[in-house]
């Protein structure tokens, strides 16, 4: 299996002297492979979103590591999916609480906020850590995918993109669901499927998807060349170089993150460009 994750700061954040707010990780053991990708919000109020995205990734890995094959048997799938949603949110909130207890929000951090934002943050300090989250775990012949917010979870199959979650009725433009909102449970989605349904799964932040605008264009211009070249030369450095270029030059200036796992049954012939 090919497994990859990489995040690169965008040029708007470089110019604005802010930090990389995306976070990604991968975890592999004898039983499972996990990848994550999270996009900390960039709005003024989200002063610790770089940590929020890191905690989201950690929470996801911690929770998915506890899932065993039995838990995703057909009978238990629904209960397991609900339990994953609850556990990830509890774990993330607990990591945030812990951090807040040890590192109170300082005046310096909120110096640029207006009074409304300061008030909002004093009421709900966890908003400071606002982030999206996507994650995927391959275990046995099953795949578990989780998502909240506007980062993308894309399945690929025979050279086509397969959308794992329908997002036509999701917020648009610069509004997204977030781990920090009170009703996050209603928006955190989990899907459990057979690995054979897909050739691989890609997670990316909107810093990567937005410049390509459509699924077709993203597939033809980025996914297919990435997959076919990787299968050909096994060189991950070219992918990192491309992501760096999108983040620092070609894209919208947002941070860019890509994580993926490609399964062994993927046939490269489907990923040659049309």
């Amino acid at each position, binding site marked *: 299996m090919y497994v990859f994750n990489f995040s690169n700061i965008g040029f708007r954040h470089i110019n604005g002297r802010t930090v990389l707010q995306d976070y990604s990780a991968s975890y592999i053991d004898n039983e499972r492979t996990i990848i994550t990708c999270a996009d900390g919000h960039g*709005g003024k109020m989200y002063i610790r979103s770089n940590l929020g995205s890191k905690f989201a990734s950690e929470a996801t890995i911690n929770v998915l590591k506890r899932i065993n094959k039995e838990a995703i048997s057909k009978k238990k799938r629904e209960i397991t999916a609900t339990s994953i949603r609850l556990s990830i949110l509890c774990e993330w909130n607990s990591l945030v609480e812990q951090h807040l207890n040890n590192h109170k929000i300082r005046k310096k951090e909120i110096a640029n906020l207006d009074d409304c934002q300061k008030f909002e943050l004093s009421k709900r300090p966890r908003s400071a850590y606002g982030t999206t989250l996507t994650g995927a775990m391959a275990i046995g012949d099953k795949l578990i995918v989780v998502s909240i917010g506007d980062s*993308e979870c894309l399945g690929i199959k025979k050279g086509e993109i397969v959308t794992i979650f329908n*997002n*036509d009725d999701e917020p648009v*433009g610069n509004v997204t669901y977030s781990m920090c909102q009170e009703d996050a449970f209603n928006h955190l989605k989990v899907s459990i499927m057979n690995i054979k349904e897909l050739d691989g799964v890609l997670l990316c932040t909107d810093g990567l998807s*937005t410049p390509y*605008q459509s699924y077709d264009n993203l597939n033809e211009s980025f996914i297919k*060349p990435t997959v076919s070249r990787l299968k050909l030369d096994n060189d991950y450095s070219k992918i990192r170089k491309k992501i760096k270029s999108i983040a620092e030059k070609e894209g*919208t200036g947002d941070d860019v993150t890509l994580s993926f796992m490609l399964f062994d049954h993927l046939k490269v012939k489907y990923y040659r460009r049309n």
Partner: protein
Amino acid sequence: MNNTDGIKKQKLNLVFVIDNSGSMEGEKIGAVNNAIRDVMSIMPEIQDDTSDAEIAISALTFSEEAKWVYSEPKSVQDFIWKDIGTDGGTNYSEAYDCLTKFFSKKENGGQMPDFGGVAPVVILMSDGMPTSYDWEEHLDKLKKKGWFKAALKYALAIQIDTKEAMDVLTKFTGNSETVLKVYTAEALRKVIKVIAVTTTKIGSSGDLVKDGNAIPKNEMMQAEVNKDLSDVDDVEW
């Protein structure tokens, strides 16, 4: 992989929705035709001034039925305005159905990007009441579309004086402050120009996606439009 292979500028959709029913005949439709031609003459300059987004223009006409002037949004260079005529009733229901499809994502057959995007600008022009009885049901469907919610919506009430007809337009924009009563051809020309130019200028500047909130930008556009309209006579809002 080429360096910028497949990477595109964000699109800012400017959508004209034009009532060309029989009651618009004569001076009213003439004023609309002149106004859009006028706007198009300065759009290349607006496009040159913005490096962040590509302005994409669409026009939907509706009378007995609703029709797109072009099947897809056109760039400033490719949108050539041909004068439209008038005929028949005012089928708002069909117009709203066309817009509902338009504001779906590309993947689902619409014109909105699958990823990212800039809040569109919609300008509805009408002089009367709907002749389709179920227009509110169709509007409700349209209002569920995320991109329609995010859009900056203006309605121009052309020589309308009844509260009933004004209410139809207010229900479309969701805000009485973005429904403008226009009484003369000259005022209509100026109003369309101010709205189209001001909103595309602001809408295409910076902060394209995410990080923050769409509402302040819409508020900023509305304030700018209102400021620019203060010099135009024969307009009420």
